[in-house]
């Protein structure tokens, strides 16, 4: 047991800190992870993992430098502070995609989506039925559509778990999850896929054969009923009892607040809760 693991569970923590701790736990020493725009929670999770159990975690912003040394999370998770003092500038057109598309490197991508459906398909494109006159034009898929199809393990974070963000069927598949479930991905030759969804209410994963999203744990003080009510589809229940999400340790919270993100960038996407 190392220092941070021995640290007692925090009592004073917010849900963003819990989500960061849950995500950090997904990344092992030697893993290679990657984030996109406005990804404060993923970046905080990478930084936390590196400061605790995974010092050799390779973290690569999808625009920026390798092993850069921002003193804290900057206001942009793609901007120049993430190039400073890096070991290598990773130019996007050739190097970044050469590394990512090659199956051997950069195996995990941590990202958000405006809509996620029961099979982990993601939508960052349009809300509404008419693609060319949508109710809401979202930013667009950027690199997420690629990450969904090229064998990466995807870790989704959702700061606003609601029937609007967790939907039966996404209005537009910006990135492939398990498509219609079952072996639909395999039939197209797609490996990897969504592994985990960490929301402000719960942690979810995917049933091994049906590939439907299922509840893995509920956060402290959140009931299963609250989660299912906030979910726009029938969330699958595991065979055994649903445990409570492990809260962050005191040491983890201290690292997040004092070292990783003293400017509270991580709170920015939490509009309604936390």
């Amino acid at each position, binding site marked *: 047991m190392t220092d941070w693991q021995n640290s007692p569970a925090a009592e004073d923590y917010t849900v963003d800190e819990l989500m960061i701790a849950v995500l950090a736990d997904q990344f092992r020493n030697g893993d290679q992870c990657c984030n996109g725009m406005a990804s404060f929670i993923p970046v905080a999770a990478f930084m936390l993992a590196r400061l605790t159990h995974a010092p050799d975690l390779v973290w690569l912003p999808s625009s920026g430098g390798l092993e850069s040394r921002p003193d804290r999370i900057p206001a942009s998770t793609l901007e*120049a502070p993430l190039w400073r003092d890096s070991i290598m500038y990773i130019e996007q057109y050739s190097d970044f995609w050469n590394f990512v598309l090659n199956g051997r490197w950069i195996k995990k991508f941590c990202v958000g989506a405006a809509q996620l459906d029961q099979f982990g398909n993601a939508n960052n494109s349009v809300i509404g039925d008419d693609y060319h006159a*949508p109710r809401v034009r979202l930013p667009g898929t950027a690199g997420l559509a690629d990450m*969904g199809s090229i064998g990466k393990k995807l870790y989704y974070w959702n700061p606003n778990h609601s029937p609007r963000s967790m939907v039966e069927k996404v209005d537009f598949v910006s990135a492939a999850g398990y498509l219609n479930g079952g072996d639909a991905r395999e039939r197209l030759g797609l490996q990897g896929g969504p592994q985990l969804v960490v929301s402000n209410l719960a942690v979810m994963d995917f049933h091994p054969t049906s590939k439907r999203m299922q509840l893995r744990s509920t956060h402290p003080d959140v009931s299963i009923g609250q989660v299912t009510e906030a979910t726009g589809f029938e969330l699958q229940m595991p065979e055994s009892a649903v445990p409570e999400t492990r809260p962050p340790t005191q040491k983890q919270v201290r690292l997040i607040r004092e070292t990783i993100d003293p400017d509270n960038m991580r709170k920015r996407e939490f509009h309604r809760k936390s």
Partner: protein
Amino acid sequence: MQEKLTTLAEAIALVDDGNVVALQNMATQAAPMALVRELIRQEKRELGLVVLVGGMAVDWLAAAGVINRLIGAAVSMEQFGLCQQYRKAVEAGRIRVEELSETLLNARLGAGARNLPFLPSRGAIGSDLIAQNPENLKMLDDPFGGFPVVACRALIPDVALIHAHRADRYGNIQYEPTVLWPDIGIMPKAAKCVIVTAEEIVDTEVMRRHPDRTILPGFMVDALVEVPFGAHPTSFFPNYGYDSRFHREWTDVSRDDEAVSAFLDRHVLTPSTQEEYLDAAGGVATLSRIEKWEKRG
């Protein structure tokens, strides 16, 4: 070597209404904003915009009615939020979006640059992007018996607009320290015409001291203009950071058409030189602020 140095007005006169224009940009980074403003001043119409991740430039061009279609992977000002004018125009059907993932856009431009009919990708398979775009994306069997790929049709923009750190008068273009932004690696190589603004014009002898910094040879470049702080309010590493105050001023007005019009008047139409533009944006105080790379915008 042929002289490429000219004025913003003459450079942008090379852009015809209806052209497909590739724009260097990445959320809050490295957009050739002086060229974007000149597009608006010259009242270009019905342009198609190719952009990897567009930011304020796209919002301005949408607000001014310059573009009617966009080929790109995302439009966002990252921490400053969505581009509201762009969003409104798309929702109203005034801008048609061909959304591509990054590898699909890179493949389309890569094919354009290399005179190939298409390049394949394995990205975005299973997503709705492919069925949505049968004209430019087709599933294609692997002739060697593996899984299919997406064939991405060559995209050849009429014009590419670029901002750079340094150039000589013959259009040799240097970046400092090197190619960093996503689109500079391929966009200008795919385009039929390349227009560049540079922070400074230097003597060719200066270029020869660091041939590794050169990212475009003069023979690829059609027009070149010296524009200090030409990427403001976007960042231009390592010279200056993005102007967060300016971004917030824009996002504050960007949902209100009248306020948008006044903003564009003040910052785009009225200033007749780069100096006047920079003065309207806060002058020396702004420049010294962005040169410090404020980190907490």
